[in-house]
């Protein structure tokens, strides 16, 4: 339905899966940055509100040949998002330079059609009103509004940080639409102690992600579905790359790659 729009700026991530070890710092930073309420019992992962989830990958082999990898999954900010065209009330959209798929909870009616459409499970629903027990609401940040029950939310690539970076550029008299590498990074990128996440403009040769995404080890999740994600992954391990998409037995990774 909606086709890929060409943006001059395309914010994106390249996540090196050989560097991620699943410590969870990104998830903590994301929750704190984006005012996600803590959950007393988050053992039901299908009801745990996380914009960023770290999955554990296995090479499927038995001990001792078993290998493990961790895959952080933010919103893919798809070039051709399956969620945007389905929203009946334009609560989610992709039309701003930068290509970030916006989600505006105050507009959302909570029909969850977008959740059904997203194969990445990047969208989360507020099953109950959020609660900050005790004085925990004192650590809310001013950057993201709190959400009531009954609306969908998702990773925004910390869009507010982009707004602040643009503001800072304007105050310095620089071009807000040509930010230097690193002027705008997401909270998870900043928090990752292993430097597994690189963030930047995928279209800008001056940004590191531009080069990284062209690595022969780069891949995106479920590319065959044609979603054109703006999140890339890197791994030197073939088995990890193979987990990035569905392959028939005879197919090799890279066969169906669309660049």
């Amino acid at each position, binding site marked *: 339905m909606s086709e890929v729009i060409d943006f001059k700026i395309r914010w994106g991530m390249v996540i090196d899966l050989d560097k991620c070890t699943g410590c969870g710092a990104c998830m903590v930073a994301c929750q704190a940055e984006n005012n996600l309420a803590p959950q007393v019992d988050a053992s039901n992962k299908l009801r745990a509100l996380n914009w960023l989830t770290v999955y554990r990958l296995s090479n499927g082999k038995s001990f001792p040949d078993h290998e493990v990898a961790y895959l952080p999954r933010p919103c893919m900010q798809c070039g051709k998002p399956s969620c945007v065209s389905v929203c009946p009330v*334009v609560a989610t959209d992709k039309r701003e*330079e930068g290509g970030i798929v916006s989600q505006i909870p105050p507009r959302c009616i909570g029909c969850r059609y977008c959740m059904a459409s997203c194969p990445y499970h990047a969208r989360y629903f507020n099953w109950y009103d959020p609660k900050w027990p005790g004085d925990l609401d004192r650590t809310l940040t001013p950057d993201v509004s709190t959400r009531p029950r009954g609306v969908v939310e998702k990773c*925004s690539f910390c869009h507010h940080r982009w*707004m602040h970076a643009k*503001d800072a550029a304007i105050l310095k008299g620089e071009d807000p639409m040509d930010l230097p590498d690193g002027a705008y990074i997401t909270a998870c990128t900043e928090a990752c102690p292993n430097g597994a996440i690189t963030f930047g403009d995928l279209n800008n040769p001056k940004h590191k992600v531009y080069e990284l995404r062209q690595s022969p080890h780069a891949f995106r999740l479920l590319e065959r579905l044609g979603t054109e994600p703006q999140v890339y992954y890197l791994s030197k391990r073939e088995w990890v790359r193979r987990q990035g998409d569905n392959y028939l037995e005879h197919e090799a990774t890279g066969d169906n790659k669309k660049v």
Partner: protein
Amino acid sequence: MEERNHTSAPETAKKCCCCGWGAFLVGLVVALILGWAVLPALMQKELKQPVAFNHVLHVDEQGMDCRQCHFAGPDGQFSGVPTTASCAECHSEAIGNTPEEIRFVQDYVQTGREIRSEWLVYLKQPDNVFFSHSVHSVERCSTCHTEYAENPGALCKVCHIDMSKVTTPPVYSENRLSGYPKGTMLMWDCERCHANPNHLSPATNANNACFVCHK
């Protein structure tokens, strides 16, 4: 609506019996009065500012510049309302003898109570709105609109009420249900510029995408 019918029925009963469509008309008029004036007024709650700040006194008589109190902070954040501390720069003790000033000095300056957190902002935007004054600055608007260069205050007045000629702050009115002050700008107010294709030029880049204004 039910209630209204019961209460107003007796007085209108006589008229409508004799003049056919008169009942319809009476109903219409009553509803219009209710719907345009009475009920909207009931929806509003009026609040008084914590201090009857006199802008005229400060601006005209003392010759203060608006920017002495209302300026953009280092990160583009607007300081908006001054802090008690900045008021105390002059009012560490009462300068004049107006009761309001004396009260302010006693209640705020001497106790350290923060006036900024109590002042009712006429144009208060809800949490889900992102607004940066540094983007909507005189400099940037002046790339096309020449009128603001000489009269920067005019740009402020595009959104804000003009307080410079006000001796006592106007009444602050807030919707009981939504909690929005009367002055809260709604989307279409912002869209006067944001949905205007002329503003898509590189100078402003004010497109109308959701995340440009929402957080």
